[in-house]
């Protein structure tokens, strides 16, 4: 009927709903995440039943596939390691209000830098454990440096040329995947490689097998992820650089008021995010691949990291449980794919449903907070 009343009314209602979502406490958010996961799985089971498969068997296999055996747990932790690291890379940037969608590209650049630096320096170093440790160190450092540089680039473009980081990082993803794809099929291709890939890393360049004996998982890899989380959490909460970054993310105007140079902070944030993404690439290359293949086919850890970070409300500590949940789903998915006749599309759809349910509320929260909704003006 009337516009004043309509705008008032709908505005106040919108603000009220937004308020619930945006002002949720940590505990409420954990509740939202757990509830959303359970609800999404429930819907998934209904879909499985409607498609003519046994939902109980599916549910059992979901759990068994994620945590049912030593092998399953190792596989879950393998995926989790990468999800935690990639999620952490995204979370650092999001926390500081920079939307780094380019973790995938930085991950690829870091991975190839790691592999090639090891391959090229291996002849000059001793073999065996000492050489292995040195080479891993060299590979990891190179991955971090190149990943960081590849993140700094869009950061500098945003800070000094005003280029939207979402667009530049997405484009840089394509560039990284394309160029590295060409490299591993051309100049970097291993001489004896039968498929498109670099030479193999020397077999002494590997993380030691502790607790689990899975060729593609080492507790050391997971340890690196956890240590990275602790390190980032420390930087963000205990150092003035972290305070500058987080304050920029919460309220850029207040950060400016307090003397934060927004341009430097954007570049620093993107660099740090890229460094973690590069580290993810190194862990992936050393722990799982042992060489480098065409990056178009190695999995979208960088993109999945966005969902992990959103699920964790961009909290670095929260990335660990979120990463493990995603690792479990991924692991269960690959298990079910082999052990049951449920089509892979359906499995991925259900995993997608979980992602949608748990991550999207946080996405809306961030968008809402950017638009100035939520909060109490009373």
């Amino acid at each position: 009927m009337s516009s004043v009343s309509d705008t008032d009314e709908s505005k106040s209602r919108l603000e009220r709903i937004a308020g619930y979502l945006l002002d949720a406490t940590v505990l409420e958010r954990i509740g939202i995440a757990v509830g959303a996961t359970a609800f999404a799985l429930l819907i998934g089971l209904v879909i499985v039943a409607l498609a003519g498969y046994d939902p109980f068997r599916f549910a059992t296999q979901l759990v068994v596939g994620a945590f049912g055996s030593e092998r399953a747990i190792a596989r879950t932790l393998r995926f989790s390691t990468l999800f935690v690291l990639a999620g952490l890379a995204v979370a650092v940037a999001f926390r500081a209000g920079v939307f780094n969608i380019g973790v995938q590209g930085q991950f690829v650049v870091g991975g190839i830098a790691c592999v090639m630096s090891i391959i090229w320096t291996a002849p000059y170093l001793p073999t065996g454990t000492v050489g292995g440790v040195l080479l891993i160190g060299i590979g990891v450092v190179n991955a971090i440096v190149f990943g960081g540089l590849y993140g700094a680039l869009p950061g500098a473009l945003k800070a000094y040329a005003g280029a939207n980081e979402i667009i530049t990082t997405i484009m840089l993803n394509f560039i990284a995947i394309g160029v590295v794809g060409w490299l591993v099929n051309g100049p970097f291709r291993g001489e004896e490689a039968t498929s498109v890939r670099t030479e193999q890393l020397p077999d002494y360049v590997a993380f030691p097998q502790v607790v689990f004996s899975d060729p593609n998982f080492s507790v050391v890899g997971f340890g690196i992820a956890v240590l990275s989380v602790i390190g980032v959490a420390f930087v963000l909460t205990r150092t003035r650089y972290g305070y500058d970054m987080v304050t920029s993310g919460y309220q850029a105007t207040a950060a400016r008021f307090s003397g934060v140079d927004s341009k430097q902070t954007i570049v620093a944030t993107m660099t740090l995010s890229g460094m973690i993404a590069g580290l993810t690439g190194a862990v992936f290359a050393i722990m799982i691949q042992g060489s480098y293949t065409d990056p178009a086919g190695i999995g979208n850890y960088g993109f999945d990291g966005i969902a992990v970070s959103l699920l964790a409300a961009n909290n670095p500590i929260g990335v660990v449980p979120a990463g493990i949940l995603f690792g479990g789903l991924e692991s269960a998915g690959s298990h079910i794919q082999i052990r049951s006749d449920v089509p892979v599309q359906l499995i991925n759809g259900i995993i997608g449903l979980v992602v949608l349910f748990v991550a999207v509320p946080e996405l809306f929260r961030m968008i809402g907070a950017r638009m100035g909704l939520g909060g109490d003006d009373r």
Partner: protein
Amino acid sequence: MSTDNSTAVRLDGITKRFGDVVANDDVTFTLEEGTIHALLGENGSGKTTLMSVLYGLYQPTDGTIVVDGEEQSFASPRDAMAAGVGMIHQHFQLIEPMTVLQNVVLGHEPTKNGLVDEEAAREEITQISDRYGFDVARHLDTPVRDLDVGVQQRIEIVKSLYRGADVLILDEPTAVLTPQEVDALMEVMDDLRADGHSLIFITHKLDEALSAADQITVLRDGEAVGSVDSAETDERGLARMMVGREVLFDRLEREGEPGDPVLTASDLRVSGDRGVEQVADVDLTVREGEIFGIAGVQGNGQTELIEAITGLRSIDDGTIEFGGRDATEMSRRERIESGIAYVPEDRQKEGLVQEYDLVRNALLGNQTIEPFVDGALVDWPFVADHAESIVEEYDVQPPTTTSEASSLSGGNQQKFIVGREIERDPDLMVASHPTRGVDIGAIEFIHNRLIELRDRGVATLLVSSKLEEVRKLADRVAVMYEGEFVDIVDPGGVTEEEFGLLMTGHGVDEEVDPGPDLGIEDEEVTE
């Protein structure tokens, strides 16, 4: 016109709770028909909440609403509107790219053969507008965003009248207006009253309540302290009701003389966000133990000037010297470190991180200063102690450092910011609208702190759109108009009227020329 002494609105025992917070506690309020009733109170005293209950935005927890003798239960503003209650919000509810005509009729379009009958609308709006001498009619096809705030406010009023409102609620209508526009608004309110409308005028300004209203109801902490006839009270009496004690209003004489210059800005030129020059060739000097005031209608370059001095905005030309050093090229951070404190204009956006608690907010601006930080590491226990002492010394309510900044009322947020900035032990304090939107008790408190700072020898640059504030505190006052200082005067030697002239760009001794390019005459035409 309706009969005298009949009741237009009666709110009886209204209680409104939000969770544990009681915003209104058993408030009874009566609006007589054909009168103006001021609702006076500090920020956070529950004025707007009470009126939102009347306007159907909130449902009361308890109590009854009677409009025109009928008990009402408004589920939404739509119901309130139907009962003849209209509200003009502090933040206008206008759609900026749409024209005035479209805004007024929106949702109430007169139709002919299923199409909007623009002619009928045009005629009716013109009628309303002429009746009250508004200049809205000639702007009917202008997008709202191109009109100034005063006109926008009148569009809001026309909009309510167009929808048939008898009772008009005006929420802090003067907050956004210049003194001249305030006068014009008062005339409009008089006309509306003469025409039989009943008005509720929400304000926290005593003089406005006294001059505009027939009756005044004072709210304090969500309770109605009392209702008085405005003819039977004065500012002191109202102030006492508002804060529960006497408040000082007089200009305080200073002891001691200002010392050496601390801040010297020469030939300063600064551009605004859109690249248009906002500060044109300003020179200023602030000395030790001096409060240098800058008065003027907002938007005449004060913001840009302050931001240039505090290091938040780069300058186009000129030099800034601070403490004997050239500070022209210093970054914001270097300026903080060298002893410039800044109480920003926008406390919500700049002065505090809303989602941080007060401990984390106590670090804001101190990130590079020992002992808040030791190298790269933040000494959180020290920061927490510091936050604690600010809360204690500056009387921040509630007295806890763990609450989020956003949960504090405006006045308490401001006290915290003022405390943090003063505790920085600055050589120069830049205070921009330090008491805007702050209740009267906190105003007095902040003023006293600024005076203490002055007596300690700190140089202070004070920008305020409140004339009485600048006059009370400043030793010298520059009046800014269109990016320039019109004059620098001794506040004791200039009357309020003379200030008013200066603020519109005239010199004190200058004859007011009714020529076409001068603000005053034009303004009267537009109002």
